[in-house]
């Protein structure tokens, strides 16, 4: 039985989670606290992956990231070879598809922070960046953890977008969910069973760990 596809899924999930946290935390800070024209448009755009069929999103990403697409061209300025059908391309697709899952828990945590703390920081001379690092982030650690867990779990189970952008190249883009699909298609049910069960176990373990930690925090 070959479990390497699970490791690939985990690698994609880990990379996309790190990228999502790095990119979405500042963006969410902006969405939660800043006022600017067109904010509702930006909120709608980042919510799109939640409602679009993965195949639709994957199709546009394929065009966008392909050799003739704007992102594909940009990629070739810095790297050899194409972006689609590579590990990097799959991670990028998982990041884009995971945006709303990373943003939602963070936004809830940011909005729960008492505004008077932010006002106090401002009165004490802290600018928006200092306030972000010294007040907002330390008071949103629960939201950060929730965001990481949700982003990781979502990327771990990502299927449609990865299939469109990554295809199914062994060791490069054939993640566990795609391997399961192909096993079922070729009627290899026993292997599909084992791989599926492993995915369920991992996802369940992540949720148990997270809920256990959250429970412990509340009791403290």
């Amino acid at each position, binding site marked *: 039985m070959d479990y390497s596809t699970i490791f690939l899924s985990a690698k994609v999930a880990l990379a996309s989670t790190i990228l999502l946290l790095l990119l979405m935390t500042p963006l969410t800070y902006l969405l939660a606290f800043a006022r600017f024209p067109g904010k509702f448009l930006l909120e709608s755009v980042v919510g799109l992956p939640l409602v679009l069929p993965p195949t639709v999103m994957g199709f546009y990403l394929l065009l966008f990231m392909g050799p003739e697409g704007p992102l594909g061209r940009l990629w070739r300025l810095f790297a050899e070879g194409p972006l689609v059908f590579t590990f990097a391309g799959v991670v990028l697709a998982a990041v884009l598809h995971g945006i709303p899952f990373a943003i939602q828990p963070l936004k809830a945590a940011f909005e729960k922070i008492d505004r008077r703390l932010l006002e106090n*920081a401002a*009165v*004490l001379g802290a600018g928006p960046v200092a306030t972000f690092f010294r007040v907002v982030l*330390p008071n949103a650690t629960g939201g950060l953890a929730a965001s990481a867990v949700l982003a990781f779990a979502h990327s771990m189970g990502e299927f449609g977008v990865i299939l469109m952008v990554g295809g199914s190249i062994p060791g490069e883009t054939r993640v566990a969910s795609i391997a399961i699909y192909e096993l079922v298609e070729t009627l290899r049910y026993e292997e599909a069973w084992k791989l599926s069960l492993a995915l369920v176990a991992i996802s369940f373990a992540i949720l148990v760990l997270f809920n256990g930690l959250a429970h412990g925090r509340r009791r403290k």
Partner: protein
Amino acid sequence: MLSVTLAKEMAGFVIDVSFSCANGALIALTGPSGSGKTTIIRQIAGLDRPDTGRIALNNETWFDGSGKKNLPARKRGVGYVCQDYSLFPHLNVAANVGFACRDRERVTELLHLLGIGHLRDRSVARLSGGERQRVALAQALAAKPRLLLLDEPFSALDPATRQRLQDELLALKKNLAIPMVFVTHDPTEAAKLGDTHLALARGRRAESPCPSATEPWAACQPI
């Protein structure tokens, strides 16, 4: 010298006041709840925007309704202590006081000055009301404010603690030589602390700031 002239339309009434406060003096702002006291304080701090008017400290204009100048709160250098504590819950006492001050010695000095030196490593969640207000005051002073705004800082405290903190504030006032604006709904407190006194009624200077000739406005003098 702090000089304030401001107007702001509120729900149901209009705030329209003008006052000034010299360095080393304390002006007491009194009035019933909903008369606009906190809004005035917040506008001086830069947390709310007046509709029109002018706010200036020592000839530096912070807000000018005509010229559209509105200096952000973080650049005004005010100390602001309010009734509901806005201490940072993730920081201990020393880190809260040192939020705007890297100088550890100054933090230690302030902790001792306000009698909370023994609390320096304690979490702010485990402080009494009086201790919290001392920490909040130390935090505001650590930033070396050019103006101190106090919005009912002692009103949630028991009478004994309250009196002690009032006395300490009077002592501080002598040393600091900056203007102080003190909001309170307690006439006795206003009379004890205030050099001048402004009584508000629905956003404007009250017709007669002294509610009765007997007490407790003995020290109350219209400005």
